[in-house]
């Protein structure tokens, strides 16, 4: 590659400021998860860092599950949203470490999940409650804690399937990981 190519391909480079970072976060707060369109990538806690590197906005994104088929879609959506907001060639870095966990879902994210009909994760992912019987999961429809597990595996990798014994509605639970 000629030095000239580098310069030509990096015409969008410019110095970034604190307000650029703040604006990038604001843009990201509007990028919704394709499978749960009420929570943003910020609500989910999958954007781990935003900074400015070599003239471009730089993000660290972490997948929820190893095989999450939405990972690429989410990255494309993020890139597109940032470009539309005027950030030239955003630099997305996918990082596995430290592994994403459900503790990273924000309070707002949890409330939005509940309002959408998905019970948010209960308890802390750091506690080894994974192998024991889970604590009571409240029905997102009627808030009853009289619920039962139908299957640890639900409609997507991140969810388990529950049923409410009071209102009898089945519902998804965003399981602790």
């Amino acid at each position, binding site marked *: 590659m000629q030095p000239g190519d580098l310069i030509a391909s990096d015409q969008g480079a410019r110095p970034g400021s604190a307000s650029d970072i703040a604006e990038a976060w604001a843009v990201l707060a509007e990028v919704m998860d394709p499978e749960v369109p009420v929570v943003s990538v910020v609500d989910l806690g999958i954007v781990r860092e935003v900074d400015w590197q070599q003239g471009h906005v730089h993000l660290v994104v972490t*997948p929820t*599950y*190893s*095989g*999450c*088929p939405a990972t690429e879609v989410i990255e494309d959506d993020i890139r597109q949203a940032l470009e539309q907001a005027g950030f030239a060639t955003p630099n997305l870095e996918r990082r*596995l*470490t*430290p*592994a*994403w*966990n459900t503790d990273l879902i924000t309070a707002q994210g949890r409330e939005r999940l509940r309002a959408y009909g998905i019970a948010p994760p209960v308890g802390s*992912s750091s506690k080894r409650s*994974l*192998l024991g019987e889970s604590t009571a999961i409240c029905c997102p429809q009627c808030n009853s804690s009289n619920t039962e597990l*139908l*299957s*640890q*595996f*639900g*409609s*997507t*990798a991140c969810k388990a*399937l529950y049923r409410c014994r009071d209102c009898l509605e089945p519902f998804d639970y965003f*399981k602790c*990981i």
Partner: protein
Amino acid sequence: MNDDLIQYLLRLGDTALIQGQRLCEWCGNAPALEEELALMNVGLDLVGQARNWLEYAAELLNDGRTADDLAFGRDERSFRNLLLVEQPNGDYAVTMTKQFLYDAWHFDVLQQLCNSSDERIAGIAAKALKEVTYHLRRSGEWIQRLGDGTEESHARMLAAIEQVWRFTVELGAADETEQRLAAAGIAADHDKAANAWLAEVTQIFTLATLPVPSPANYFYLSGRKGLHTEHLGFILAEMQYLPRTYPNATW
């Protein structure tokens, strides 16, 4: 050491990939909707983990091949998966027995790999361990339900164990590659993993009122060396058909 590491990554990645591919054969055929969802979720986790391992292997190989090329462009003799996971699904007892025997081993290996001196390995393992914790819990519950279920389900579990147990010989001991990597703090201690595996299997089989067979005997095939049973070729034929017929196809 690099060659050892590549071999090791292929073993982890190919085993996850072939187990995932086998599970996907249940798509549209599972006995209940919840089971179908669970099987596909587990399969998807494993395919994702396989991609993480194979991406790392591809980088170390550094010959221009990607993780996809490794998955879809290699022949049987180049695959390094455990023989256990290439065995046919059979009935639900066979499917769950294979899954459980693999999960119990996988869980301990990943636990150890979380402390690997290779940060990339530790990162992939930490992610995968969260997923495999759910896999093991589920398959262990199925073994108990089927083993300690009806006369019919108990008989089928005995038949399933009889059918696949001999392939567990590969879970039993480390080879030189694994020993060298373990000594360097990179790979899991596979002798330790074998002990943890047997303890887990004994515990669950006992709860399931199933006898634990005596240790499997050595036989001439070895997934680690690319010497597979006849079944792998059929899996690859299906899995690799599209990329081989339409190279570079995208969607």
